[in-house]
């Protein structure tokens, strides 16, 4: 009997708490609570389909993330590589043919760590190769980068690193590593800012704004 009364009390308490918490529609303690309460996978009217139309994209799945990345091979001007690299590189070096790739200076890790063959497949120039020598398609070059840059790769998969191809609405299309980083010289350059506010500068010099 006593047990039943206490059960009633517990139920009453629960009902009261629920009713009091669900007061107004906007009664959230924080924006995080609001997000949690109202979240729902977006299938609304807005979509990036139109913005992505005409762009050459491929779908990839990495872990639990599936998204689009730009197709790569079509963007490389001298692809397919075997049009010139008909023989292994060792046989082409020093021979009398036209020099190529003179503009490529490798500025990516130290020369002890990386050389051309770390990424390029010397046996089949149309392919890349992983550290263990497995063939890899040029379109999936991010799989090469992730071998060392695992932190960036995790962030990229989730969407914290790198840019989107178009809008915020699904489907998600992200730029891949080589869309922003030159694989031969991946660092971002130092340069001048594109904007300078002369009015602010004058105000500050005149002491109008401190």
């Amino acid at each position, binding site marked *: 009997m006593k047990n039943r009364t206490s059960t009633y009390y517990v139920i009453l308490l629960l009902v009261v708490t629920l009713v009091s918490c669900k007061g107004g529609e906007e009664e959230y303690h924080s924006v995080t609570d609001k*997000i949690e309460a109202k979240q729902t*996978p*977006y299938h609304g009217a807005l*979509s990036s389909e139109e913005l992505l139309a005409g762009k050459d994209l491929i779908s990839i799945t990495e872990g639990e993330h599936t998204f689009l990345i730009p197709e790569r091979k079509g963007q490389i001007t001298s692809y397919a590589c075997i049009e010139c690299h008909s023989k292994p590189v060792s046989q082409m070096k020093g021979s009398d043919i036209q020099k190529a790739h003179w503009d490529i200076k490798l500025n990516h890790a130290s020369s002890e760590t990386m050389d051309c063959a770390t990424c390029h497949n010397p046996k089949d120039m149309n392919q890349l190769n992983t550290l263990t020598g497995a063939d890899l398609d040029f379109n999936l070059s991010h799989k090469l980068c992730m071998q060392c840059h695992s932190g960036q790769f995790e962030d990229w998969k989730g969407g914290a690193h790198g840019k*989107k191809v178009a809008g915020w609405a699904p489907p998600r299309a992200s730029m891949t590593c080589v869309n922003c980083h030159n694989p031969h010289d991946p660092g971002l350059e130092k*340069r001048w800012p594109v904007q300078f506010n002369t009015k602010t500068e004058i105000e500050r010099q005149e002491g109008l704004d401190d």
Partner: protein
Amino acid sequence: MSDNKKWFSIDLGLNKKKETSGSCGCGKTSGGCNSHKEELSADEFYEAAIDASIGEERHKDGFEQVFDVKMDRRQAFKKLTASLLIGAGAVSTSCSVTTGKDTKEKAQIDWEEQFKGNYKLMTDDEKQKTIDRLMRSYELRTGKNIAMTAENAEENVLFGYAFNISQCQGYMNCVSACVEENNQDRDSEMQYIRIHEMKDGEGLKFEEADDNYYHEVPAEGHFYLGTQCFHCDNPPCVDVCPVQATWKEEDGLVVVDYDWCVGCRYCMAACPYDGRRFNWSKPEVPENEVNKNQHYLGNRMRKKGVVEKCTFCVQRTRKGENPACVEACPTGARIFGNLLDPDSTIRWVLANKKVFRLKEDLGTEPKFWYFMD
């Protein structure tokens, strides 16, 4: 008036088909018309009010066209005083036989724009009408066309932003893209975004940071942090507005009705983040640089004496695009998305990166997070 407009209409003879209830086909403004019997008492009151206030004058040429609106005396005087200039302009143009059709149309638009309601209270139809007027007005004034829209907030969308302070290199491409996208005043060099150059290892010291640097970036031993309107979920700027010219939309955007703003700048004082800007002079944008894809609540041309700010590029984001700053950022330091969508990348950032917001203790709940690699 049959349609429930929130502004008063004048008829300068452009919309001849439209008849207001005060007059009928016979051209008389009083008596005579049997079809309006049921409204007689209202009409009588109207007649009496107008007679008492302006008497015989209303029978003069053109004048009654201008005042062919139903309002009581108090209202009439209030409106008259509030819009003396526009009224005078409308009267003079409508009275004149020499002014062209365009001038009259311009005056008509000015009049209707002057007396339109708060955007927040408008129906979709009224929103459409006001943007139509604004587009026509721009066309009449400049001879160029603009495309203005008034998309409402999309359901199940709450916009949020994340800024990676270890990625930002301080190039300021975002700042210049923002200025171009949002038609900000070139004369005063108004900018919504500030990039603060801060010393490594000293925390966030805004008073020591430089937000107007000009040297090669990234500078040694510095990091860069951008600020703009954070579209707070509990925005103090909205609370202080005495005329409700600024409010939070359903998708979380804090917006301003530039036509309702009285320029008191309370909101600027209330904002703890310096997110708002004031037009001390008439904003000037060279005609060839005007971004013609506009939204009523976004980048349409502002006037002197109103407050404006970042709208997360409402004209873009309500079409599914990213804000101009996100698109322009060459480093990918800016992440934008739908906070309500658990599959969005912004949600992944919030769940997996160490994020913080500025002045979180104020309880303003900004929807703008910072994070590091």
